[in-house]
């Protein structure tokens, strides 16, 4: 079977199945079974089907592009790429293009250079992403079917107090929940399969609106609706930057497709349009990053203009001269800024989506939604979208952009980790941990660890969804989010405790060094290793490695603080611990499945197959080598990733990671299990820092002061102007108009109407008089005619003096 035709088919179907279920539930949801119970089945079936299709696609892919073991030797790796590449460009031996298929299903609009189309760009990353997303989504669907059973009957929201003091009471929204869930999956898969930036943007926004639906699922709660709006608006801020980036790309290059696409040019001839990747990293330069001609000309617009002016008569001369000059201009650095802006712009979008500093504030609030939603948002769909886009867009990013990304990631991970230390809400802890893990991924991408970052994305997806689902089952058991009321739950809910322990170990990257470990062990180690090698080649930026290591320590601490406070020790609240109970099987089964995967996701099978290896296969062309460049922030070296696999660096990183993680776990144990250190005492000692962290670094207040208050002030000012001035003016105008109209009406009634009536009555009376002439007798008319004729004749003859008698 031909993968070029099979893969789009399979993945396209996998992409559209959730849409089908969305539509079905949208129209028939409430009628599906009692209170729409079956809608869960529909949605779940849909997502499971698309999971199956994705697996089939994965099988197809592997059958066509078998994966070699991850080699530490660039040449071997490159060979494997070259061999496994279906239609490989033999000329570039060490810089082979990754195997990828692209095409368009449907062209929305095609005019001039712009071509908006619904298309696909499928490589190993896409396939993997499909599998992971659909798998996790399936688990979450199954889980949610149990978790949301409150919505099956009329639901009384105890957190909403109506004016009469009673609680808010409403019918259940079971089907609606799953409908949004299906739409969410559909949008996410759309982003993953998208073949061009425009399509990505469309589904990007769809994801945003879905998150809005789901976070604001309990929209009667003020907090929930606020959180939904917050998430939406903050994301818009990022998307604004993304739009700028897209405009920069399109305006200068005239295409938004990743891969080369065949389309009709303005003359209507079928031509091959170079995609972004081949523009930025053309074969000519052996896929080394270089500013595309379009951007160069765009930046050197004035030069181009004058040349064109000189050759106003012979335009083809001008064109040729411009073509000849482009390389000089590129050497002179034209267009670098443009490329930088493009990269930063797209990154802004990702900052918003995957909650990077400074736009991370929405994510902690997003837990207002039902827990399965949080799991989905935090693990596989929304925040993953940002990182995925960065990975997809990676080849276009200049080292400068990468540096910005790296620093953003570092800041984010440290910030979020510190906040997570003091949070007491179980889901909030997880939320901040998500942010900091995302920071890790960004950091990895920024320091050149393409595989490392995306690898962490996948592993994190597994264990973070696991953790959220576990917390969900805890909340389900205790009906509270506050960890200070929990404790000692391990006895009542062993499954949850066990699986959650697995999750914690995975996230801190626990494992026997150099032997084996949980999934997090591999991904986090590679990130640290890459950071280390980066800071070695660029000593000035070694802070990145420090931040990453410190982040690892903090991660270990707060994760185990969470686990200990929840499951270990004695119950703090008898009432809660009495009513606590293990979750139903429908909720436990996904936990187990996810736990297994959280363990094994990082492993690479004997055949050499593993997520990392497969990602290695999808690595964009030209990113495998060390690059030394940098225009804006001085010279910068992005080390090749395989260099971080060499012994020294790798071992150092592993040991560091292990040490920090162990230290964190020990500290947590001392404080919360053995009671050697009292948390309260610590908090008292570091009171200012504690409050500072407790207040989340005052970010919300900061934003409130910087953005919200000014806006509100301006708004109130505008409204006062509106009420005080504009309304007054309008009222005055209206009043004047009324007066004038009154006068006009008087004139109309007296003069005009009088005139008209007078005319009418005059006509009437005249008609009454003339009526008498109308005898209605035919014969008299004939006589009149004859008499008239004769009279006319006589008259005419007399006037003309023609003698009749003659």
């Amino acid at each position, binding site marked *: 079977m031909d993968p070029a035709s099979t893969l789009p088919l399979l993945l396209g179907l996998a992409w559209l199945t959730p849409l089908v279920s969305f539509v079905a539930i949208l129209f028939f949801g409430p009628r599906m079974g009692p209170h729409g119970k079956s809608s869960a089945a529909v949605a779940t079936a849909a997502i499971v089907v698309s999971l199956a299709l994705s697996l089939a696609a994965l099988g197809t892919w592997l059958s066509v592009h078998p994966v070699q073991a991850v080699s530490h030797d660039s040449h071997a790796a490159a060979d494997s790429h070259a061999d496994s590449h279906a239609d490989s460009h033999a000329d570039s031996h060490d810089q082979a293009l990754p195997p990828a298929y692209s095409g368009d299903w449907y062209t929305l609009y095609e005019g001039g250079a712009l071509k908006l189309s619904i298309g696909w760009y499928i490589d190993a990353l896409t396939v993997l992403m499909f599998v992971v997303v659909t798998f996790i989504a399936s688990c979450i669907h199954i889980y949610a079917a149990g978790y949301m059973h409150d919505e099956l009957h009329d639901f009384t929201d105890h957190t909403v107090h109506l004016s009469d003091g009673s609680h808010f009471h409403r019918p259940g929204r079971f089907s609606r929940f799953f409908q949004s869930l299906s739409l969410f999956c559909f949008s996410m898969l759309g982003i993953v399969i998208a073949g061009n930036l425009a399509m990505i943007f469309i589904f990007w926004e769809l994801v945003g609106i879905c998150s809005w639906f789901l976070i604001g699922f309990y929209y009667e709660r003020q907090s929930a609706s606020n959180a939904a709006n917050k998430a939406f608006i903050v994301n818009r801020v990022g998307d604004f930057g993304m739009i700028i980036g897209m405009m920069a790309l399109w305006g200068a290059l005239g295409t938004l497709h990743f891969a080369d696409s065949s389309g009709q040019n303005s003359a209507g001839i079928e031509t091959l349009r170079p995609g972004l990747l081949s523009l930025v990293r053309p074969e000519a330069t052996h896929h080394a990053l270089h500013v595309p001609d379009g951007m160069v000309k765009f930046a050197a617009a004035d030069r181009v203009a004058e040349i064109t002016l000189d050759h106003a008569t012979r335009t083809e001369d001008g064109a040729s001269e411009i073509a000849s000059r482009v390389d000089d201009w590129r050497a002179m650095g034209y267009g670098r800024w443009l490329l930088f802006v493009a990269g930063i712009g797209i990154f802004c979008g990702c900052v918003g989506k995957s909650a990077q500093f400074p736009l991370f504030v929405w994510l902690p609030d997003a837990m207002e939604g039902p827990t399965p939603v949080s799991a989905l948002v935090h693990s596989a769909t929304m925040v993953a979208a940002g990182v995925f886009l960065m990975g997809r867009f990676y080849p276009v990013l200049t080292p400068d952009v990468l540096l910005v990304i790296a620093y953003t990631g570092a800041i984010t991970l440290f910030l979020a980790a510190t906040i997570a230390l003091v949070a007491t809400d179980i889901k909030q802890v997880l939320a901040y941990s998500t942010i900091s893990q995302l920071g890790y991924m960004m950091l990895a991408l920024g320091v050149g660890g393409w595989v490392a970052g995306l690898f962490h994305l996948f592993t994190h997806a597994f264990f973070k969804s696991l953790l959220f689902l576990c917390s969900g089952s805890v909340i389900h058991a205790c009906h509270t989010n506050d960890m200070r009321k929990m404790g000692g739950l391990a006895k009542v809910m062993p499954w949850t405790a066990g699986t959650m322990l697995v999750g914690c170990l995975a996230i801190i990257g626990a494992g026997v060094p150099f032997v084996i470990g949980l999934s997090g062990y591999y991904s986090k180690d590679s990130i640290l290793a890459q950071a280390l090698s980066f800071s070695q080649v660029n000593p000035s930026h070694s802070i990145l490695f420090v931040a990453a290591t410190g982040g690892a320590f903090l991660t270990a601490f707060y994760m185990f603080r969470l686990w200990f406070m929840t499951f270990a020790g004695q119950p703090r609240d008898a009432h809660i611990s009495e009513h606590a109970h293990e979750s139903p099987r429908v909720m436990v089964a996904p936990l187990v499945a996810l736990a297994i995967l959280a363990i094994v996701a990082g492993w690479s099978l004997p055949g050499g197959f593993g997520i990392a290896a497969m990602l290695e296969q999808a690595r964009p062309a030209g990113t495998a080598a060390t690059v030394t460049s940098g225009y804006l922030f001085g010279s910068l070296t992005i080390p090749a990733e395989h260099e971080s696999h060499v012994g020294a660096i790798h071992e150092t990183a592993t040991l560091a990671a292990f040490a920090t993680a162990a230290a964190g776990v020990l500290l947590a144990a001392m404080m919360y299990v053995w009671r050697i250190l009292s948390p309260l005492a610590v908090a008292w000692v570091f009171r200012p820092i504690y409050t500072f962290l407790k207040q989340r670094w005052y970010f919300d207040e900061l934003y409130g002061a910087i953005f919200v208050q000014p806006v509100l002030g301006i708004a109130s000012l505008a409204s006062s102007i509106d009420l005080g001035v504009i309304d007054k003016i309008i009222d005055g105008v209206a009043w004047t108009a009324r007066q004038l109209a009154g006068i006009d009406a008087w004139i109309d009634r007296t003069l005009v109407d009088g005139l008209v009536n007078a005319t009418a009555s005059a006509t009437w009376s005249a008609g009454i008089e*003339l*009526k*008498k*002439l*109308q*005898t*209605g*007798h*035919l*014969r008299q008319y*004939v*006589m009149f005619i*004859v008499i008239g004729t004769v009279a006319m004749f006589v008259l005419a003859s007399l006037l003309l003096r023609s003698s009749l008698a003659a």
Partner: protein
Amino acid sequence: MNLIAPLCAAGFFASGVLSDPVSVTHYLVVGAILFTSGVVCMAVKRNALGILMGIELVLNGANVNFIAFGSPYLRGEGSASIGLDGEAIALFVILLAAAEAAVALAITLNFYNNHSTVDIDEADDLQG
């Protein structure tokens, strides 16, 4: 003798009138008489059919004039003639007269259906 005189008188009169060929004027006079009697017929008859006959007479009188002016036989030397056009127009008049007769009869029939009479003095519904 007393027998011959009137004969001679008659003979001379007859020869005087009958011996020279007719001219256009003769035809015109005939047409005028037909036309006038048609008009009078229209003006006098109270019977709708009578009025239709009057119309036919009028058209016929007009036709006589056309034929007279168009007839090459009556074309005196120097006096212009409309040649074929006369006959052509006369033919058109005849055709349209037939059409008119059909419609007029239909109208008369309707009138009879509504008023149960053909006396057009009763047809004064439009009287002011």
